[in-house]
């Protein structure tokens, strides 16, 4: 653990009650990008997530109480920004994101100059194991976001994202608290930042259950729609998009 940055990028893993998966995820990150600094942000888990992450060799930022995904990710972004990192790759702690894709995301961030790179399931066509309800939701949000972003986005709900320092600065000051992925795209568009999608394969969860249950799906859609439109109201005019 150090208060100095090492290298120019950080792998950020938000985790809540992921004791069954976190060790494997950290191991895979270390295998994919040897020597990478890995920071687990533990969102006040009630299980042994924090200990498992430390045992696996990650640094742990422990939140004293549960903030939810957005607050948890933002805490990591704030620390990364303060430590001076140029790039942060976010990998979920449940094992759905394959860390083998991290080098490609990092290369895309460095070479494209985009502020954000999204690991997308759909950029090369339909993904295998997405549920019909989730697929429907993703299609709805694609349709809504198309005119707002001024370009298509294939996988707006993907949490497998990399950001550069400019986006890190914005997100460390302002980041959506619940279900942040879609709203974060609108926040970036407000700043006229660019994003790029690269193909990634998402895997089933290693352990635990998704926080988005069937009953929460409707709330998710309404909440995100409201969040998107509130963010549109904050747009500073419609000039010079993209």
């Amino acid at each position, binding site marked *: *653990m*150090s*208060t100095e940055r090492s290298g120019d990028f950080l792998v950020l893993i938000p985790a809540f009650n992921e004791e069954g998966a976190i060790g494997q995820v950290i191991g895979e990150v270390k295998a994919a990008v040897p020597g990478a600094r890995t920071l687990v942000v533990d969102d006040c888990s009630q299980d042994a997530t924090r200990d498992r992450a430390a045992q696996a060799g990650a*640094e742990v*930022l*422990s*939140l*004293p*109480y549960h*903030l939810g995904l957005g*607050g948890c990710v*933002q*805490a990591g972004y*704030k*620390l990364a920004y*303060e430590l001076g990192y140029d790039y942060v790759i976010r990998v979920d702690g449940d094992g759905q994101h394959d860390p083998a894709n991290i080098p490609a995301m990092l290369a895309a961030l460095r070479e494209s100059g985009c502020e954000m790179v999204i690991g997308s399931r759909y950029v090369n066509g339909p993904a295998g194991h997405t549920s019909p309800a989730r697929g429907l939701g993703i299609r709805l949000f694609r349709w809504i976001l198309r005119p707002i972003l001024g370009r298509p986005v294939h996988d707006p709900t993907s949490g497998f994202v990399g950001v550069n320092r400019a986006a890190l600065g914005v997100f460390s000051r302002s980041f959506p*608290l619940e279900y942040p992925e879609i709203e974060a795209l609108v926040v970036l568009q407000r700043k006229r930042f660019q994003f790029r999608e690269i193909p990634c394969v998402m895997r089933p969860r290693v352990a635990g259950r998704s926080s988005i249950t069937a009953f929460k799906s409707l709330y998710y859609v309404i909440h995100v729609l409201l969040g998107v439109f509130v963010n549109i109201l904050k747009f500073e005019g419609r000039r010079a998009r993209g």
Partner: protein
Amino acid sequence: MERLQLTMTVLSLVLMFLVLYSVRRAHIRVEYSVSWLGAALALLLVSRSRALLEWLNGYLGLHEPAVALMMVVFGVFLVVFYRFSVIISDLKDSNIALTQRLAILEYRMRAERETGA
């Protein structure tokens, strides 16, 4: 109508007493009691002033002063709830920022200790 006005008067007095009692017992902070006391006072005023109620009834184009009274009650509480939503949102934002700052400071302190050890 008189019975409704009397009920409103009693309710607004009970609300005032409850709020002042809570402030005295430190269950409600003074700054947050102002909205409730303002609401109770507005209700007391409207329920005791028949002329004001009649004017409001005519102004809103209603046929029954009782409806005007209920609209005032609804409006007053809507304003109070809005004010508290703003306060709660502000408190939540501060809470999140404090929690994140605390976690980062703990992280930095631990790192300093490990570096020094």
